[in-house]
């Protein structure tokens, strides 16, 4: 466990990240709307145009939080590696938002986001598993990092489909990781997790139903890479995998249904349709991917808010099991 001063420092970092995201989002949204950088909210009957790429404010908040962590808590390569990973994933997201990348190029490019962790060596090649303990992977672990960051970044990107679905669920995940890292006595990693949760919570206030901003791929890739980096830097790989189960279910079931990497715009048979009463319904199209949304809608139509609430409940459940997994590791 950590002392009161360390926890206070980490909470301050979270407040700084929250404040910067909260106050930069409205002017950024106005500027993006003025420039015509907008996306259509396809799950509303009137299809409103919402400013896209507002995930930049999450990155700004995160950066401000991490600078304050560096100032108060002292220099750490973990902070530099984490911020580098988020920044690179964010840049790839900006490119994808401006000029959509192919379904193969995007994951390939997000591998670059793993470079700061590898170059600064902020990892331990002995991941810990419950009932076994540390598992030696000294040679292969760096290569697995190259896979882990694109997997988390793109899995989070694939669930960013409804108002507040990514920001709300990922806030729950990052708060869980912060709690777990506090118990593990990892002060810097806990600070990173709290900075992420502060930024995401502020962003959620604008992104929740009815959304006034969209994070775009800029936000979802950066936040997904941030969670992957947290797992590696904080040595909580398995705990993170369990916390991300709804994301993994969504990504794997979607990919396995289609049989290859895909972009939403490439899939002709739609998995979900908007009804005239504003509710969303799962289609019975055989060729459409069986995503988490489709599973949620399998028994009947629902409103967008209800779907996001179900996603949040499932994430909270996975996070509770992630805490259980953490204590199993600790007992070990």
């Amino acid at each position, binding site marked *: 466990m950590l002392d009161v001063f360390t926890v206070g420092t980490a909470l301050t970092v979270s407040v700084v990240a929250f404040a910067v995201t909260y106050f930069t989002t409205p002017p950024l949204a106005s500027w993006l709307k003025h420039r015509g950088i907008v996306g259509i909210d396809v799950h509303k009957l009137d299809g409103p145009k919402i400013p896209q790429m507002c995930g930049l404010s999450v990155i700004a908040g995160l950066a401000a939080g991490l600078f304050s962590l560096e100032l108060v808590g002292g220099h750490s390569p973990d902070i530099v590696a984490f911020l580098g990973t988020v920044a690179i994933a964010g840049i790839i997201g900006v490119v994808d938002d401006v000029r959509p990348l192919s379904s193969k190029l995007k994951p390939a490019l997000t591998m670059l986001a793993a470079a700061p962790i590898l170059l600064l060596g902020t990892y331990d090649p002995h991941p810990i*598993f*419950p*009932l*076994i303990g540390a*598992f*030696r*992977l*000294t*040679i*292969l672990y760096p290569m*697995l990092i190259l896979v882990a960051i694109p997997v988390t970044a793109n899995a989070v990107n694939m669930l960013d489909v409804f108002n507040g679905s990514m920001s709300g669920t990922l806030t729950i995940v990052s708060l869980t990781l912060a709690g777990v890292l506090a118990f593990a006595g990892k002060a810097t990693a806990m600070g990173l997790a709290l900075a992420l949760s502060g930024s995401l919570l502020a962003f959620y206030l604008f992104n929740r139903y009815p959304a006034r901003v969209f994070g775009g791929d800029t936000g979802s890739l950066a936040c997904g890479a941030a969670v992957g980096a947290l797992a590696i830097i904080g040595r909580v790989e*398995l705990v993170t*995998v*369990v916390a991300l*189960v*709804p994301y*993994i*279910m969504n990504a*794997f*079931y979607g990919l*396995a*249904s289609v049989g290859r990497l895909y972009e939403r715009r490439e899939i002709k048979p739609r998995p979900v349709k908007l009804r005239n009463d504003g509710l969303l319904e*799962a289609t*019975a199209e055989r060729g459409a991917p*069986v995503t988490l949304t*489709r*599973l*949620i809608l*399998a*028994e*009947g139509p629902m409103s967008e808010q209800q779907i996001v609430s*179900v996603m949040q*409940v*499932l994430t909270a*459940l*996975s996070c509770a*099991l*992630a805490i*259980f*997994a953490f204590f*199993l590791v600790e007992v070990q």
Partner: protein
Amino acid sequence: MRIVALSALAIFVSLSVIFGVSLIMRATILILPYSMTEFRIVVEVLRVLLALALAYSWLRGGKAIADWYFWRSVSLRGRDES
């Protein structure tokens, strides 16, 4: 009802991740023990490939359950509507 079914699916997947990963790792340690240090890189590559193969089979199993739940619910819904 649907939240119960989906929660059960999420709990099943989460618990199978927690215990499945441990079993997979234990299996790879048994098949390829630490004593084989002279071929460390080969052992590590084989371990990861074995773990990936087992994890993939487990994911396919989860997918089969999800597919069964989805298409069963869709057909029941269609029957109720008609």
